[in-house]
């Protein structure tokens, strides 16, 4: 049992109209790993996240989480099974407070019923209190407690990105998917983000799969890297292997990048 991968993707694919956005996608992630997914623009990275989270139903292949087949489950059930994500273009609940954003993600772990809330039974108060405590604790970890009553849309960009990760964690995932978490951040901010990702992995005993174009980040923290191009895997391996893989250099990195990234 120990050897069963947390996530196993078997020849998954999807087409839009005639376009095969992803095909023959294989992926195996074990408990506790931190994996990178890279590839040129339009390679199908975000689409593969959408497959994993039930936003799109794969037209071929299978997806298993801890041996349970996920194909065809709607996103909210996939989340309850243990995969949660952030979005390439931030999707916060803009007009909700920071705290409520996190509470929403706590939703499916709370038990109190609609009736108990409408009648304001004790179970409602207990349930809400518990949600609130848990959420505040998360915000504290992400250094967002001081802005908990702000509306999400009023946060600066960097805090919005962090809030999105906090929110995803509140859903209690085993596997966390991050789609370009460092997009639009400068090197310093990116550096802080790397620390944060490492930290939450330890703290929450998480498995993480992330998409990123910033090679400093990817090469810096990922243990293994998958490379997609035109919807297909072209390489898989350790950061050093990927960095020197000619196919990857041709399709994605460009010739001199190895020297640049060190700079």
């Amino acid at each position: 049992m120990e050897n069963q991968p947390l996530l196993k993707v078997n020849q998954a694919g999807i087409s839009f109209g005639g376009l095969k956005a992803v095909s023959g996608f294989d992926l195996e992630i074990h408990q506790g790993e931190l994996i990178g997914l890279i590839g040129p623009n339009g390679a199908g990275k975000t689409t593969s996240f959408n497959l994993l989270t039930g936003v799109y139903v794969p037209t071929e292949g299978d997806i298993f989480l801890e041996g349970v087949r996920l194909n065809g489950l709607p996103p909210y059930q996939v989340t309850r099974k243990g995969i949660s994500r952030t979005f390439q273009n931030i999707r916060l609940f803009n007009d909700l407070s920071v705290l409520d954003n996190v509470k929403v993600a706590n939703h499916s772990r709370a038990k109190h019923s609609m009736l108990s809330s409408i009648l304001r039974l004790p179970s409602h108060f207990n349930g809400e209190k518990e949600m609130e405590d848990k959420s505040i604790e998360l915000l504290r970890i992400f250094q967002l407690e001081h802005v908990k009553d702000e509306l999400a849309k009023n946060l600066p960009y960097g805090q919005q990105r962090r809030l999105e990760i906090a929110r995803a964690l509140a859903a209690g995932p085993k596997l966390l998917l991050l789609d370009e978490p460092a997009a639009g951040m400068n090197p310093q901010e990116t550096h802080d983000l790397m620390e944060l990702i490492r930290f939450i992995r330890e703290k929450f005993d998480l498995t993480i799969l992330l998409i990123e174009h910033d090679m400093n980040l990817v090469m810096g923290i990922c243990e293994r890297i998958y490379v997609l191009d035109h919807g297909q895997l072209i390489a898989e391996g350790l950061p050093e292997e990927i960095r020197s893989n000619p196919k990857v250099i041709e399709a994605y990195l460009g010739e001199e990048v190895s020297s640049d990234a060190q700079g």
Partner: protein
Amino acid sequence: MDWIQQLVNGISLGSIYALIALGYTMVYGIIKLINFAHGEVFMIGAFVGFYAIAGWGLGFFPALIIAMAVCAGMGMLIERVAYRRLRGSTRIAALITAIGISLFIQYLFIYFRGAQPEAYPEVISNQTFNILGAQISSQSLMILGTSIVLMIVLQFIVHKTKIGKAMRAVSHDMDAARLMGINVNTTISATFAIGSSLAGAAGVFFGVYYTKIEPLMGVIPGLKAFVAAVLGGIGIIPGAMVGGLVLGVVETVVSGLGYSLWRDAAAFVILILILLFKPSGIFGKNAREKV
């Protein structure tokens, strides 16, 4: 039941819906506003045509041109006064304003001339042909012909001319359109002018074909035209045409089968069924939000 006759009836009715829906869908396509006042512009067109014919003794075509011109002006005025300020606001705010404008025009009109109906004079003689046992009136042929021609013209304007390209650019992204040097206000005004002049034309045709016009005449056809536009895929010009015809034929067939009281219900049932199976209308692309 006389199938051919009913089909003819349905297409005549449907082409009126189509004519109104064309303008509707055009405006919607560009600024995504359900312009409830469209029905009232249609009403104004009918009355302007009426006054031109009955009051000033003009012929059909001059009356049609005047009505279209006045309605174009009305459309631009409505946009300028009521919608432009709301461009940055929620769409629902614009929708409520549109409902407000629609009521305002109706009752301003009633205030000045009363609610009683008016009868259109017969300006073009109406002949009836007998084809395959069905009676076809020359007027309904004319209306169908006009809608088809206008549809083609509109399609041409939107897809082939410079102003059409500007319209499409504005509809996708107003700020980016500005950066191309497109004058967004002018473009939207032009859209309203074209859409409203179509409504005006529809008003005159309606008056000639159905004779009766009254200040609240825009309400139901306005709603039906909206339904037709949604049915065809909102914002899509040929969709409005087809949606209008489908609606007309469905209504006629249901009445023809003796369920005239269920006619509107049937139209809505068809609409809902189409939306459920093809949520963006007959011609709409099922564009899912890209995640």
